[in-house]
């Protein structure tokens, strides 16, 4: 059955991806006719200069950002779910995005520096520090479950420091921080896009190289060892890979919930298999599609009203999680 599924799933996802990508360029708060958008993209446009700037400098980077961020979060969610054998693991489970939040909270509230660039750097440093802490513990603790608990604890620690900072902050600083926490694909301009693209493409490429150890981990650590996989090394590589992906996306787009948690389940539903050789690429493509869809929905079609990204992703993600919990037996999991 799964072989048949593969035959249609890749073309279908690619078609959805291309459609959503174009939809992202055409749909926006300002109504620009499809023909003008196409002319702008192919460089033959001679109309309003403002529209050209809107498509090329506002919509294009936002759409590419959504595409990259969606695949990065989804893939790191999948790898963490496999590593921890836990269907409810996601990129935020190890406290890495909490680390990014803490970095931003310190920069914004404590130092009062709100420029976009300092925010990115602060988020990245925060996430990297937590990642290093987790890596340090992963050398000491052999059980994955214990490592997971440590990750959650580190996340709680970061959150409590954020609470203290917020408690003592003025209303406008808290507002700024809350706005950042809403997530946003539109902040990355063309000039900064190569940074996001560089890190996330490197992380995604590395994840493709980890397919074999990921499949081996599905069978359990002792089986994996028997198959010749160095489990400790694989674990460290998976942690670094997911850590970098989460850190870079959170730094550029703010914390984005649910995509990393929900998309791997959507991929399993589509595929009916837990083999990472297909599950990982399908997760990657589905992640991009869902993030593009969420990005489009932030400008409510028909009304032009804005909705925060963090409100959209759970609307797409939560029903999937509920479906998974209710119908668990139908989905191929960790054996």
């Amino acid at each position, binding site marked *: 059955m799964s072989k048949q599924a593969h035959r249609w799933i890749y073309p279908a996802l690619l078609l959805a991806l291309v459609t959503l990508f174009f939809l992202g360029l055409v749909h926006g708060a300002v109504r620009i006719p499809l023909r003008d958008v196409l002319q702008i993209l192919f460089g033959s446009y001679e109309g309003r200069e*403002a529209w050209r700037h809107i498509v090329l*400098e506002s919509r294009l980077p936002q759409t590419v950002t959504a595409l990259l961020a969606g695949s990065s979060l989804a893939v790191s969610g999948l790898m963490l779910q496999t590593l921890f054998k836990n269907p409810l693991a996601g990129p935020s489970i190890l406290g890495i995005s909490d680390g990014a939040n803490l970095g931003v909270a310190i920069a914004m509230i404590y130092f009062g520096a709100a420029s976009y*660039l300092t925010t990115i750097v602060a988020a990245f440093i925060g996430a990297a520090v937590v990642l290093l802490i987790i890596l340090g513990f992963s050398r000491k603790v052999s059980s994955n479950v214990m490592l997971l608990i440590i990750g959650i604890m580190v996340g709680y620690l970061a959150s409590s420091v954020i609470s203290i900072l917020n408690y003592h902050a003025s209303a406008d600083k808290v507002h700024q921080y809350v*706005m*950042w926490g809403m997530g946003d*694909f*539109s*902040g990355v301009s063309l000039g900064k896009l190569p940074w996001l693209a560089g890190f996330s493409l490197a992380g995604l490429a590395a994840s493709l190289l980890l397919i074999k150890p990921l499949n081996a981990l599905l069978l359990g650590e002792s089986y994996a060892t028997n198959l010749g996989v160095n489990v400790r090394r694989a674990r460290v590589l998976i942690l670094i890979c997911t850590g970098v992906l989460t850190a870079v996306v959170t730094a550029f787009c703010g914390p984005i919930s649910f995509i990393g948690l929900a998309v791997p389940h959507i991929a399993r539903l589509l595929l009916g298999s837990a083999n990472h050789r297909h599950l990982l690429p399908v997760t990657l493509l589905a992640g991009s599609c869902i993030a593009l869809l969420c990005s489009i929905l932030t400008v409510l079609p028909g009304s032009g009203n804005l909705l*925060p990204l963090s409100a959209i992703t759970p609307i797409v993600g939560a029903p999937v999680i509920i479906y998974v919990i209710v119908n668990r037996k139908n989905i191929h999991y960790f054996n």
Partner: protein
Amino acid sequence: MRRTRTVSCALLMLLLLALSGCGPRQAAHERQALSADTVRFARNLRIEYFDDYVSVRIRDPWDTLRQRQHYVLIDRNKPRPEKLPADGTLIRIPVEKAVIYTSVHTAIAEQLGALDRVCGVCEPEYITSPEVLGRIAEGRIADLGVSTSPNVEKIIDIGTEMIIASPFENSGYGSAEKLGIPIVEAADYMENHPLGRTEWVLFYGLLLGKREEAERVFNATVRHYEELKTLAAGAATRPTVLLERKYGASWAVPSGGSYIGVMHADAGADYVFRDYPGARSVHLTFEEVYDRAAGVDCWFMKYDTRTPLTYKLLQEEYAPYANFRPWKERRIFTCNTITSTYYDDITLHPDLVLEDLIALYHPDLLPGHKQRYYFPMDE
């Protein structure tokens, strides 16, 4: 049988209603206000003087059909009048020990010469006045911590008689509400007209025993503001202007009726989003703002970081800003709200901010003017 009972019940209730309606009306006849309400610009404030008390009513800025507060001010040196409105919060004036939560109202108390009556403040890190900071260091004014959760025990300990706090929609004042100390809700920042904000000083002056001083300051500000407005109305051109910048995914655009929208109009400029009704900000996407405002003449924005905002930093923050005409023609003006006294002065002296704006829009109208708040942005 049942029906008769319902009818008689209804009749009884009608009778009761009619009777209860008579009571207060009669009382109102007895207590005629000495003067009509003289508030001119503020929409949420009503001050009425009676022979032995002053009634101050504050309308809910978020639900304008509702009264938010009713304060009854009585002279602390006279015996308590026998008949007072039942629904009011009683405050004996002049208040001798006031706690002020916001730096803005502390600055107002200082400008009225009423600092001796201030016994505590919150968030001294936002206070710029050396005089107030000195008093805090000497311990004459207590530092009560964060305004959202102040040190309640200290508020009681220093014998506070009244708290002046800035209200927010749907939020209370936590444990400070349970102390039984009157909380004055300083909702001046919700006024749409710049002079409406200033007018609240009349209320603060009453509370702090500086009525004449407050009237003097208010009248001088109104006179200066209206002179400047007339001056700007005669300008040969009306430049178009864009305000503020995007944060996160949205650009909070002040509407035309907001105090900042009114102020730019009074300064002789055409604000691009003046057609948005109401007094609140509207959240727009970058592309909507860009579509309508890419070709404006000037761009004004406020920011609150210690490092000065520059053309370079603005472009680093979000590259498409560089496509706006004011960016290309170097017509962006910024106000640093941390290093300037903008927020301290905006309530009492919108005239000074207006003067700054006119000098930038129409330099020929105010030759030799020295900028106080808004400056051309650095490279």
